[in-house]
């Protein structure tokens, strides 16, 4: 290779030596900090390329998971949905490592398919949009389990999946942008608060 990329270590070393000249502290001059931070972030950044292969869920289950995630946080005019945000990948990764999640989510998906088979004679993915909406409307609210205890496992499952989907979406790049979080940057002074409307 003709070009040798400068490593983060080299940069930090240079910066640190600069600071060392005037101080015994191993710190980086403020003006160079931003550059160094970006180097660090870029090096540490996880690289996700290509198609994700599920680690825990079967291909069929993973499709169901994707569909459910997207139903929980859908695409709208402001942003993509949970699927575009990588929520299914996040959920599959954690589930593959956690036996409790495997019971809750793996078991939950099987419960859902069994319910759909009982009610509509086919698995969730093969149900019509109206049928899918009907079953989701049943398991998306606690009060339905109070009326029909047979739904309580489904309600539990869906509540957990809703939280995990929200996690996956709102910690993604598009989710953070959707919320309007604008920090994680470098400021010389903190501006304080724009005026607050009255309660």
């Amino acid at each position, binding site marked *: 290779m003709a070009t040798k990329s400068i490593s983060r*270590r080299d940069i930090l070393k240079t910066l640190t030596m600069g600071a060392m000249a*005037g*101080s*015994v*502290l*191993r*710190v*980086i*001059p*403020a003006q160079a*900090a931003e550059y160094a*931070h970006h180097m*660090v*972030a870029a090096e*540490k*950044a*996880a690289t996700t390329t290509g198609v994700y292969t599920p680690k825990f869920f079967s291909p069929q289950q993973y499709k169901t998971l994707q569909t459910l995630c997207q*139903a*929980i*946080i*859908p695409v*709208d005019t402001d942003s993509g949905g949970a699927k575009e945000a*990588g929520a299914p990948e*996040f959920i599959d*990764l*954690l589930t593959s*490592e*956690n036996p409790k*999640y495997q019971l809750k989510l793996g078991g939950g998906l099987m419960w859902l398919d069994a319910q759909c088979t009982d009610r509509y004679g086919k698995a969730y993915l093969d149900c019509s949009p109206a049928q899918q909406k009907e079953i989701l409307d049943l398991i*998306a609210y*606690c009060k339905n389990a109070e009326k029909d205890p047979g739904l309580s496992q489904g309600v539990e499952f*869906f*509540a957990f999946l*809703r*939280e995990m989907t*929200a*996690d*996956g979406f*709102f*910690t993604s790049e598009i*989710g*953070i942008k*959707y*919320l*309007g*979080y*604008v*920090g*994680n*940057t*470098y*400021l010389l002074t*903190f501006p*304080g*608060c*724009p005026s*607050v*409307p*009255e*309660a």
Partner: protein
Amino acid sequence: MAQVVRSPKVYDVCIIGSGAAGGTAAKVLTEGGLNVVMLEAGPPLNPEKDFKEHMWPYQLPHRGVGVGGEHRHELNDEFIAPNGAWEIEGEPYTAAAGSQFRWFRSRIVGGRTNHWGRIALRFAPVDFRSRSTDGMGDDWPITYEEVSPYYDKVESYIGVFGSKENIPSAPDGIFLPPPPPRCTETIIKKACDKLNIPCVPSRLAILTRPLNGRAACHYCAQCGRGCLTASNFSSSQVMIPPAQATGRFTLITGAMAREIVVGKDGKAEAVAYIDKAMRSEKRVHARAFMVAASACESARLLLNSRSTLFPDGLANSSGAVGRYLTDSVGSSAGGYFPQLEKMPPHNHDGVGGMHLYMPWWKYDRKNDFLRGYHIEFGGGRDMPGVGDFDRLCEEHEGYGASLKQHCRSRYGTYIGFSGRGEMIPNEHSYCDIDPDTVDQWGIPVLRFHWQWSENEINMAKDMQETFRSIVEAAGGTFISKAKPEGRHPYGIEDGGVIIHELGTARMGSNPKTSVLNKYCQAHDVNNVFVTDAAAFVTNPDKNPTLTIMALSWRASEYLLDQARKGSL
């Protein structure tokens, strides 16, 4: 034939622990000319590699919550600087039947200062005279006036922002300018003004101006992740480097102290420690010893240092080692503030902690409890993290576009409040050596005994009532899980959870009832000092770290003076 015996290297001082107390001692002692060796049970800290400052959740496959989501809702996630844990594999602790106690321990250079909230509050004059004031607990053998010059030294060196307020319960210090309030803080301050509760700039060890070679804060709110510019205080980045620069400092990492070894003359002569990497025992010799392993770990080391001269543990003729254990009284609640829904997106980060707080204000009236508490609060448009939307999901239920919009409109509208109050030592709260359990290094472990008294429960009740009045005065909806009954009455946290545990080798003028004299020097063994919060007599509603550093600085100067006089 005469055998050649190589005498071991003898350092002037051996410091056990590298946190707030150990780091301060290392700086002062080495700069004073002494040769110092420091034992740290954990590995070195490497900010360039270990810190995750400025990373986004989506840059980590687990989004910060670790393998299998194990850190979901935990104090530490993948972003936080390495600093410690509630449980350390192979190093258990136990709780006596009926006691609930959690012990947050650190195994890393810098100790718990790597994640410390940087809240740097001076104790007030009255805090040193508790018994004289209300008849409970004990007075310190020192006064505020004696400690004050050391608060000055610490603040001038580490940098603390704040404002002069002339509040008797919260003495002013040497302050850098405070940052302006965030929106959440502006709203709460207005409410506090209505209620006559002081809401003033907080006092945090974060630089708002460059100081002593360190750059000013760049307001990313990520102090807990560790700061590459060392704009916040940590022992690892601010105390250890100047010690290293003297050339008189030796740091031994992965060294778990097991016992302080006493010579025939009754003075300590070495520390026996486990070299964790080699799984073998070694010794390091010194003329004096500074035990700074954290209050309970220091008590454990003394209690485990039994000998014929000291059958109940080193420096424990009083029986006070492990006793008088306290933690802060903690209780939390929060509120939803609809006016925050109307805020346009804006940078809310600020420093890594609150810009305003409420110091104790009811000191001149009769309350249902003795002593006081301060209030910390925070919330708003923080960087989103895993677990942050659970509550919104639960209250909204359902799915689809309305759930998505609900989460966005409610994002940043929650403000949480935490009270931090003074616990009075009681005979039911202490630690001792568990007779049945050793850790993986063969060192007997601590067993905790814990009981809150009525005073603390009443204080927690008052906290909840105050939180409610503030939230409602600010036009918010009060949200609290606290109930008057149950295991956590009024939301009082278990012992140890606030991580202000202290008092287990307290100082005092009477050697029969205290372990240390007013210079943190053991009554029984004059070349042993304990300079962490074990030395504290009371646990006022001020986070202990600033006082740990002030007392360690003071003890170190005293030790230097003794060394100059040749009495080491």
